């Protein structure tokens, strides 16, 4: 009995610590005053200012475009790489996997500065100055390992015999890959994609060093406000982003439970 109460309280505490900051942010996005230290009345002015500020909107566009593009490209490259690595011999596999871990544990600032130096160095040959494209390349680079690492476990769970059986039944390797392997590792691919997407939205350090003039993302925009304090416009933007994600999650969950119940009915 006591144990159950303790469990409950513990659970609620965890949720409180997880969500209290977000609730605060949402509440203060309606605060009249610029300061978080004082509540001075309800207002929607930060929301109207947000939509008037072309710089924030431009940064938001860059953030989303780079997140979607880098996540899609990294998922394609990462999944193919994972399938390849999975088929390797033991020693080779160990070497390649360790090389994959390296960018994950490497500090962001090292990755960021070294990528910047690389892009500056290659500029005379490629003609590609720092900007949207280099930031995209950098994001793809740091996203790939995460995709590989989330696809690998699914590949390990995969029953080799199903693939071989498909070949025995006359499927070509590419057909078997598309119809047998990919669907089975799909949860891993989706996890990788979502991970890459959120990491890309979050990233500040690498983005800061790999972008040039005129292209910034939300992370750079927010960090640059450090000296004068974050403008409450950003609270409004964060609120909108949070609510969008929440809504997406609810819709996906609802769909899934519907699908599940349909499957049950048909069985």
């Amino acid at each position, binding site marked *: 009995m006591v144990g159950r109460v303790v469990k409950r309280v513990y659970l609620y505490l965890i949720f409180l610590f997880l969500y209290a900051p977000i609730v605060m942010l949402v509440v203060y996005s309606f605060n009249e005053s610029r*300061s978080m*230290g004082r509540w001075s009345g309800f207002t929607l002015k930060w929301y109207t200012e947000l939509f008037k500020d072309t710089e924030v909107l431009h940064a938001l566009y860059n953030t989303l*475009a780079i997140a979607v593009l880098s996540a899609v490209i990294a998922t394609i490259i990462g999944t193919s790489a994972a399938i390849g690595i999975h088929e390797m011999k033991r020693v080779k596999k160990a070497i390649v996997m360790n090389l994959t871990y390296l960018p994950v544990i490497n500090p962001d600032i090292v990755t960021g500065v070294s990528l910047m130096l690389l892009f500056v160095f290659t500029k005379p040959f490629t003609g590609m100055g720092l900007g949207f494209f280099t930031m995209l390349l950098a994001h793809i680079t740091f996203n790939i390992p995460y995709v590989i690492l989330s696809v690998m476990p699914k590949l390990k769970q995969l029953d080799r015999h199903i693939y071989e059986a498909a070949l025995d039944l006359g499927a070509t390797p590419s057909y078997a890959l598309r119809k047998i392997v990919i669907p089975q590792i799909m949860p891993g691919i989706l996890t990788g994609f979502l991970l890459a997407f959120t990491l890309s939205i979050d990233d500040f350090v690498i983005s800061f060093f790999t972008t*040039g003039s005129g292209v910034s993302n939300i992370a750079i925009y927010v960090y640059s406000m*450090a*000296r*004068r*304090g*974050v403008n409450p416009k950003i609270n409004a933007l964060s609120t909108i982003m949070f609510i969008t994600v929440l809504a997406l999650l609810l819709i996906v969950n609802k769909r899934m439970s519907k699908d599940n119940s349909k499957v049950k009915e048909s069985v």
Partner: protein
Amino acid sequence: MKKAFKIFGLLFSIIMVVGILAGCGSASKAQLKVYNWGDYIDETVIDEFEKKYNIDVIYDTFATNEEMYVKIKGGGADYDVAIPSDYMIERMIKEGMLEKIDFSNVPNYKYIDERFKNLPYDPNNEYSVPYMWGTVGILYNKKMVKEPVDSWKILWDEKYKKQIFMLDSSRDSIGVALKMLGYSLNTRNMDELEQAKEALIRQKPLVLSYVSDEVKNAMISGQAALAVVWSGDAVYTKRENPDLEYAIPKEGSNLWVDAMVILKGTKNKKVAEQFINFMCEPEIAYRNTTYIGYSTPHTEARKMLPPEILNDRTAYPTDEDLKNCEVFEALSDVIKEYDRVWTEVKAAR
């Protein structure tokens, strides 16, 4: 699953199309790339400049002088105009990163207050045009501090144990200690620096925490009695909480200036000078200073300010207040010692 791919495909193509369209618009116009602190300009000013001179302004922001320096030094950015602080300008001049300004193209320079010309970071006034300025001082809560605040020594008073916020910044905090001891905050004397270190370590038990930007909210909500802050933040916090007051200690303090500079390698020096001149137009300088809330070095813009701001000694201290104030020098030869001192202070128990 097919649906998911379709959605990705759709998103992908939308982004590509929008990206291509966005890329087309600005091909023919002259371009100017400006690098400034975040939230440090009235953005309508940029639109107005673009319209008036038919120039496309690319405007980006940074958070610290050091970040900006790395970005430009590393060759990662090709900005035309930047707005760093005094000591960083000195360093950039020394390293040949700045272009001399042709002041015949910046006639509005005449409006800049004489007090902000020929400062140590740009002794002959060749490279920079002041944009904003301010001081470092003590912000205190009148309800908690009953005695007059006129000396840095109050930050060493046992009475205010765990009631004090210090800045988490080596030059600023060591500067406070040096000034308290009566030395220059640009000292190269190792003995004086050691004494400052001892003082800061002695003060440490009294300090609630070493903070940066969050100090403003903490002081507005009355979490501590005393804090070391920049004057611009003091103006803002005083407006939010009338119990707060700001003082520049009599031993003197740091007077800082952010100034506009032109970066070496700019392809449109003329446009850059045009922009700096535009920023110095009285009306524009006035709008920027009212938006940001920091003090302007522009004489005409100052005349337009309402008396309650102009007479506020926080934003516009008297010459008497500024008597002992100093501008930071770059100190590149001894900055390692400052870093070491600060590390030892932070590590001390």
